[in-house]
């Protein structure tokens, strides 16, 4: 049996089905990314798993135990970092850590040891006396993570931990998560950043409360149906519209250029004349492997 076994979970708010028949297995030590658009049900699912919301139906087993029935036993094994900064803004970095450690009964020498360990990877030691409200975005997230880790959880659940954080802090944050993974922590993390999904062992796409697909990041990207070409031209709106109006061809802005999509088995040469009318030489189209984002958008569009 898997370390985590999420089985047929549903949760509605009135008529709105926020999570619907959601199942997922997570192995011990795995980093699993839960990816989906806003309103897909990610946070509801996470709140159900953390026992902050009741499921309407379904079960959740944690290391073989029924997590809903035995939550008090599971709780010390679980670390949760919610989406919104939920630490005490008027307490200092160290006071927040002391407070969270106290909740889990960690005091004295054992706490000091844990605190120092957390400081080594968060680099928060120089800011120990600073009030949480005065920390930068990236430092707040590191403190929130430290508070979620203070009791040595076996499972860490992170709800969009890097939203609004700059690229350098984001990278540092993931370096910490990967260090935790090496130490054996299992992680369930939601993110709107496709590049972060690449850090995960596996990912699941969730949309309208249901799981659409799951696999390793490479497997998910490879599920893309069709062919993709990179067009290294400025994606001006009129050019994009002209390309999109060609029957049998799709186009989307991607970074400084565009991705052009063809159906499976089609030939790009077939579109040479039409492309020329939009000012694009067919030779400018370079075949590329699909990216995760290509597949994510494709899945969403077929469902809308």
């Amino acid at each position, binding site marked *: 049996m898997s370390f985590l076994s999420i089985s047929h979970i549903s949760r509605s708010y009135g008529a709105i089905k926020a999570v619907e028949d959601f199942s997922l297995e997570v192995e011990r030590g795995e980093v699993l990314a839960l990816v*989906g*658009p*806003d*309103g*897909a049900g990610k946070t509801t699912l996470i709140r159900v798993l953390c026992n902050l919301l009741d499921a309407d139906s379904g079960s959740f087993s944690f290391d073989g135990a029924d997590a809903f029935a035995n939550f008090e036993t599971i709780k010390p094994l679980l670390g949760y970092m919610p989406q919104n900064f939920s630490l005490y803004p008027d307490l200092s970095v160290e006071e927040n850590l002391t407070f969270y450690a106290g909740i889990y009964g960690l005091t004295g020498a054992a706490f000091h040891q844990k605190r120092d360990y957390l400081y080594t990877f968060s*680099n928060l*030691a*120089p*800011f120990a006396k600073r009030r949480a409200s005065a920390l*930068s*975005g*990236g*430092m707040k997230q590191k403190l929130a993570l430290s508070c979620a880790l203070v009791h040595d959880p076996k499972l860490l659940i992170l709800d*969009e931990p890097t*939203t*609004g*954080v*700059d*690229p*350098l*802090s*984001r*990278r*540092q944050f993931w370096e910490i998560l990967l260090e935790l993974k090496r130490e054996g922590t299992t992680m369930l993390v939601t993110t*709107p*950043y*496709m*590049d972060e999904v690449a850090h995960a062992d596996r990912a699941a796409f969730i949309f309208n409360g249901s799981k659409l697909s799951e696999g390793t990041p490479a497997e998910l990207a490879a599920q893309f149906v069709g062919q993709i070409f990179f067009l290294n031209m400025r*994606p*001006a*709106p*009129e050019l994009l519209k002209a390309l999109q109006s060609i029957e049998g061809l799709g186009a*989307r*802005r*991607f*970074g*400084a250029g565009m991705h052009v999509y063809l159906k499976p088995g089609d030939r790009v040469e077939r579109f040479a004349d039409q492309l020329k009318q939009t000012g694009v030489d067919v030779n400018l189209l370079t075949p590329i492997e699909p990216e995760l*984002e290509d597949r*994510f*958008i494709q899945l*969403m569009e077929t469902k809308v």
Partner: protein
Amino acid sequence: MNGNAVEISGLTRKFGDFTAVDHLTLSVARGEIFGFLGANGAGKTTAIRMLCGLLLPTSGQGSVDGHDILKESEKIKKTIGYMSQKFALYRDLTARENLDFYGHLYNLGNSTLKARINELAEQLSLTPFIDRLAGALPMGWRQRLALGVSIIHRPSIVFLDEPTAGVDPVFRRTFWGLLYEMAEQGTTIFVTTHYMDEAEYCGRISIMHNGQLIELGTPHDLVAKYGAKNLEDMFIDLIRPAGASNEEN
């Protein structure tokens, strides 16, 4: 209107001993999509607040849409749109009521405003949500509404401070499609983002670090200049302190 959309020179703002923005000099052409990048705490929001006439500089000068930022902040407020980092709409009002409220603040007449709201609802695909409470809108729709509010009076420049933080890739893409359309129609877009794929959509980007502008150019040229793999690596290499791991980030 002649001249650049934004023209600033030596713009500086201190808070006590702390220099949040340090001699910022910059020009942004009309109709440009300008990406104003930097780490958290680099001084971006302070700079934007000065450009929007919400904060006076300690020293330096400049103009926005031809109006002096020191003396004509009231004129600037009428001509620009500003979408702040924090969701600043009335949660207990519907999307339509928010648009209506802000439209009246800009003295748009009833019939003009009604037509403008319908136009924006269409353009931003807000129509199905127009009579929902703003506080009950999903994140991506909230951001669209906030954009709608910031452009209700057809500003010539919009300042967008992290407009897509926490918004999923599909929404982000649609949002940027809207920005492109606005730029094509001549609106100047001045935008901050932490998403480097979005930074690539900009005509030019600048990078702020510790209050100073340390780079400025097209995304392509900057990546080439540093021989980086991509914009994100270039950005990180530029601001990551060598050897100093306890740097504040």
